[in-house]
């Protein structure tokens, strides 16, 4: 769409690159569709799941953070989800209305971010396998939503609208900064990887000594995950 709007040679070339990679990926996907373990999944299309995914993971989490969003979800149920979506539609509508230029056209960049947010959040939620579309699946839509707030906020012609937009953005920054370093997944590092590799290298010798099969396991992250790597010359007969 952007390529058609810009009509620049470079933009069209970018479209060709993206389309070519898309075709390759489609080829990969379609070549194994029959064997796809998740091909029957359709949990995201369940109306309850769709509503919850959109309101909690894609609308509330980027502004309020995961904890507050989950708390709302636990307390309010589908009525709360619907209210959240209604508030979002209202805020987005007011932001677009307030950011119009003198000819009455909405801000182009704000519109693009809003469009990206809608495409990302709806498609990710609707196609969610097992009905789950939070976490990493909501990162990009969260960025699009916050960029939409930023672009519509600075173009707003009404101070109260930019005030509310600014407050929402500042709130998101505070929530994000507070939870920035707070995760078990971030605490799992590779400090003992070299030690584990050294032990793995010695394992075939130890196994021969104690007449047992050599372990291939090495610890990785997250906690309790392991990878099995074949030892060099393992397939050779003793």
């Amino acid at each position, binding site marked *: 769409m952007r390529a058609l709007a810009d009509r620049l040679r470079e933009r069209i070339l970018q479209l060709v690159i993206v389309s070519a*990679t898309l075709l390759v990926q489609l080829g990969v996907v379609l070549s194994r569709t029959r064997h796809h373990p998740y091909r029957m999944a359709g949990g995201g299309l369940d109306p309850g799941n769709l509503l919850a995914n959109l309101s909690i993971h894609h609308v509330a989490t980027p502004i309020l953070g995961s904890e507050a969003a989950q708390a709302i979800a636990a307390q309010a149920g589908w009525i709360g989800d619907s209210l959240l979506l209604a508030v979002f539609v209202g805020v987005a509508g007011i932001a677009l209305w307030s950011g119009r230029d003198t000819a009455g056209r909405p801000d182009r960049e704000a519109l693009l971010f809003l469009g990206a947010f809608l495409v990302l959040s709806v498609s990710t939620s609707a196609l969610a396998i097992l009905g789950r579309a939070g976490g990493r699946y909501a990162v990009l839509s969260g960025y699009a939503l916050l960029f939409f707030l930023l672009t519509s906020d600075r173009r707003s012609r009404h101070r109260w609208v930019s005030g509310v937009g600014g407050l929402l953005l500042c709130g998101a920054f505070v929530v994000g900064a507070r939870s920035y370093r707070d995760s078990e997944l971030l605490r799992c590092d590779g400090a003992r990887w070299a030690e584990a590799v050294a032990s793995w290298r010695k394992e075939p010798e130890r196994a021969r000594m104690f007449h047992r099969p050599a372990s291939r396991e090495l610890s990785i992250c997250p906690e309790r995950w392991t990878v099995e790597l074949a030892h060099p010359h393992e397939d050779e007969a003793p």
Partner: protein
Amino acid sequence: MVASAGLLALRAPQLIAAPRLFAEESRVFFRHAFESGLFDSLTYVYWKAGYLNLVTNVATTLGAHVVALEYAPYATMGIALAIQLLPFLILLFGRSTAFRGEIEKGAACCILLFAPTIAPEVWLTSLHSTVFLDLAALLILLEDLKGVGRARRWSYRLVLLLGGYRASTPSCCCRSSRCALSPIGCANGSSSS
């Protein structure tokens, strides 16, 4: 840029000092790279996921074939870190039509750093570099390309090319059709969360 990189590193400095191999990045991709030849590991498709993830393939191939096993996590983390810095580079040194001036770019950088949705599972792992490549693609979409130099043009093309061969979280309108045909790419790339 220095401040952004510093704040980015501050989230988990231990992951830069002592990088890790993470979930399927290691259990599936690195294992395959370690036990296969160069070409095989670069073109590997994890059929349970259903898509070609070139970035993870390149990162794990580097870790398995170029550096010693002890230093493999540095290869995967290095690639992930470089990709995570891409959106900042495009934003700060590009000519965005959406973010003009230092204040707007600064606010956009704050969003990149502190958005509450940045899940820890995507942090400094090549397995989920897709998120940042998609973000880079979105920012390239907003660049003013008139009069852009050759080096930048080729850099943008490379980012889009790399971004195309990875897990398919839809990044913008023109890519959403892939998602419709590949639900797995949308919402269950791996089981690490």
